[in-house]
């Protein structure tokens, strides 16, 4: 593999450039996936059958907490990538660990939130509204879960193999993924929770 040192680590080989472009296209597909979920959400939002409505079950406090956790993690992973470009392996790993811990925290709050919903009689089978609500949130949550494992594997590789064009590329792509989940969350926050609470 030819390595071009004039470029940032993650872009420094041809293979790396291919992977980054491929990942952007993958994100394009993911946007369509979430767009479909949102479109369905808007269609089924008021079709609550005998179940509760959004205004009845949404609570602002945990949602704000989730938002803060996820937004911060997006910031720390940015710092991690910055550290990586400076070649500072320890700092990079530190920021990635913080990111993953924040992600874990997000997931914890979300699981707690789902349990409250179930408690209040808003299970996934209750109505079309709860089905799409929990599916949309669950899809995002599942993405975060996968991200936690993925990030962990990358950390182990960076630790063992150091910052190479390959691990650098993986870390960078993972950061794109993580930012993307953050963007999706902002949409969930605004168009599901805030809209539902208003």
């Amino acid at each position: 593999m030819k390595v071009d040192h004039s470029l940032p680590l993650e872009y420094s080989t041809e293979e790396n450039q291919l992977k980054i472009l491929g990942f952007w296209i993958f994100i394009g597909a993911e946007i369509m996936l979430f767009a479909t979920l949102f479109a369905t959400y808007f269609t089924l939002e008021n079709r609550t059958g005998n179940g509760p409505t959004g205004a009845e079950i949404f609570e602002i406090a945990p949602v704000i907490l989730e938002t803060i956790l996820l937004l911060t993690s997006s910031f720390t992973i940015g710092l991690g990538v910055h550290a990586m470009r400076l070649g500072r392996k320890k700092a990079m790993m530190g920021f990635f660990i913080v990111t993953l811990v924040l992600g874990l925290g997000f997931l914890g709050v979300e699981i707690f939130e789902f349990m409250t919903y179930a408690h209040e009689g808003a299970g996934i089978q209750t109505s079309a509204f709860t089905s799409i609500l929990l599916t949309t949130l669950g899809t995002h949550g599942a993405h975060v879960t996968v991200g936690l494992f993925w990030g962990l594997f990358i950390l182990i590789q960076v630790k063992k193999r150091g910052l190479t064009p390959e691990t650098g590329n993986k870390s960078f792509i993972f950061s794109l993924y993580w930012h993307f989940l953050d963007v999706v969350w902002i949409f969930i926050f605004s168009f599901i929770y805030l809209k539902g609470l208003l």
Partner: protein
Amino acid sequence: MEFFERFAIPHPSIAIYASMVAAGLTLIAVLAGLTYFKKWGYLWREWITTVDHKRIGIMYLISALLMLFRGGVDAIMMRAQLAVPDNKLLDSQHYNEIFTTHGVVMILFMAMPFIIFFMNFVIPLQIGARDVAFPRLNALSFWLFFMGAMLFNISFMVGGSPDAGWTSYFPLADTDSVGTNYYMIAIQIAGIGTLMTGINFMTTILKMRAPGMTLMKMPMFTWSAFIANVIIVFAFPVLTVALAFGTMDQLFGTQFFTLDNGGMAMLWANLFWVWGHPEVYILILPAFGIYSEIISTFSKRNLYGYKSMVASMVLISVLSFVVWAHHFFTMGQGAMANSIFSITTMAIAVPTGVKIFNWILTLWKGKIEFTTPMLYSILFIPLFTLGGVTGVMLAMSAADYQYHNTMFLVAHFHNVIIPGVVFAMLAGLTYYWPKMFGFMLNERIGKWTAWLLSIGFLLAFMPMYVTGLDGQARRMYTYSESTGFGPMNMVSFVGAAIMAIGFVLIVYNIYYSVRYASRDISADPWDARTLEWATHTPVPHYNFAITPEVASSEAYWDYKKKNHELYKGDYEKIHMPNNSGIPFVMSCIFFGWGFSLIFSLWIPAIITTIGIFVCMTLRSFEKDHGHYVSVKEIEDTESELRGA
């Protein structure tokens, strides 16, 4: 006992038992043959673990041809059932299952892999690349498609097939049978593979073109495939979500498409067609690309109106996303919506017309050579245009109240899909055959096939326009004598039988040519114009010893006729990816996962889910940088290929 009842066939018939025996015998024969000839190792090393785009392409081709016969047998059975009034050959349940599996198999497991075969085999060669961007992902795409197809195909032997049509509208599809589960999950698995194909080829085409090949110098097939892949990337996620909703309704009791608790059956129809209509353009655009290559090669002339060809395809791809509701004009969406979708639908005829004129003008000014691929391409133009005209008829929403759900519709879409897509596949198959296997298919048998298919097609489908306008409904397993549909349907059956002979002739042609065709052909037997013909036959695994340099969309023609230099510089070592067993193993696990979900076997479902994650983890930690082909090896291969 309860356990086995789940896997039993709900509506067994002689035909099903016979096909089970046939499938079993074939399987035993294949396994025994592989063991007897000691081919297991060869199969594993050279094919199952391969990441070579050419071999993956050929595997797509074989699957597509097999599925063509599966779908074809369904078609013949339906036509036989309808050939005379009040026929008792099939009962209504069996008929429902057959038109459903016919539709799904033909569109998703026959036409799609056939198109993807062309993309795999042709694109890297046509853009002067060594392989696709992500060779291993490509193998995974293939195996996922294959396992999805196999899962769908065992449905009639284990548990029962889906029976709600290939559109699987709810609540029609919402039954206790496992058929709908098969539909949702098998298509899901294959669909994930297709989505990855889309990502892979978009990246390949954007990033891996030979030096000098700007976007506006790409050969037309590559352009068409590029646009098809963009559509894949945008349309398939919608299908993924729709199928996931359907699966959850079936397995976990969610309320997306139910009739109470707020569920909305029309939501399925919308999501399905937001994917489904672009899907037909995923099929037709690469078919157009193939016709463009063939028409320009055998007119001995560059394609007329290159830029308008590209522009029209871009326009078609955009329009394809805004017409979906023409599939349910009659389901009460209001006059305003109907008018809008009516107009956008008709608008597609304009760019399509542009393309037809371009082909005609290419022919007009060209020196035409009547080879088999060219014969298909010339037959395509009038036959497809006819289908286009009836399409515009259907696009008039007010008139659609008359034709909708009649045989008129069935005639229309077969009229665009058979001359449009199937003929292109057969033309392209004949055209690329020598590049794949080093000998030509027999021209005389090939032309017979083309004529038989065309005549059979006309006999099979033209009567349906007539009976459709007379009110013969689609998806009805029988009709009474008094309707007077009998004679026309008999003609249809004869036409279908003639088509069947045509398809059998293709197999015979392959057999005949394997035995008798000359192996002494050049790498460029058609005197073609684009880069895929500029390398040897058989194509070495690294495709091009030296990366070609390009200055026009017909670089190879310029090389032959205008002294354009293709290969500059010396041999250098070439980087190639390593084979891998993970895509196959992972797809097998996916098969098990799908099967477990279909029958709600939760423990195996959990185990296979973990298995899939383990495979992904292994892949994440794997260190694999491929290998290099040395200069010495390139020299040896090249001189051997030149000598042969």
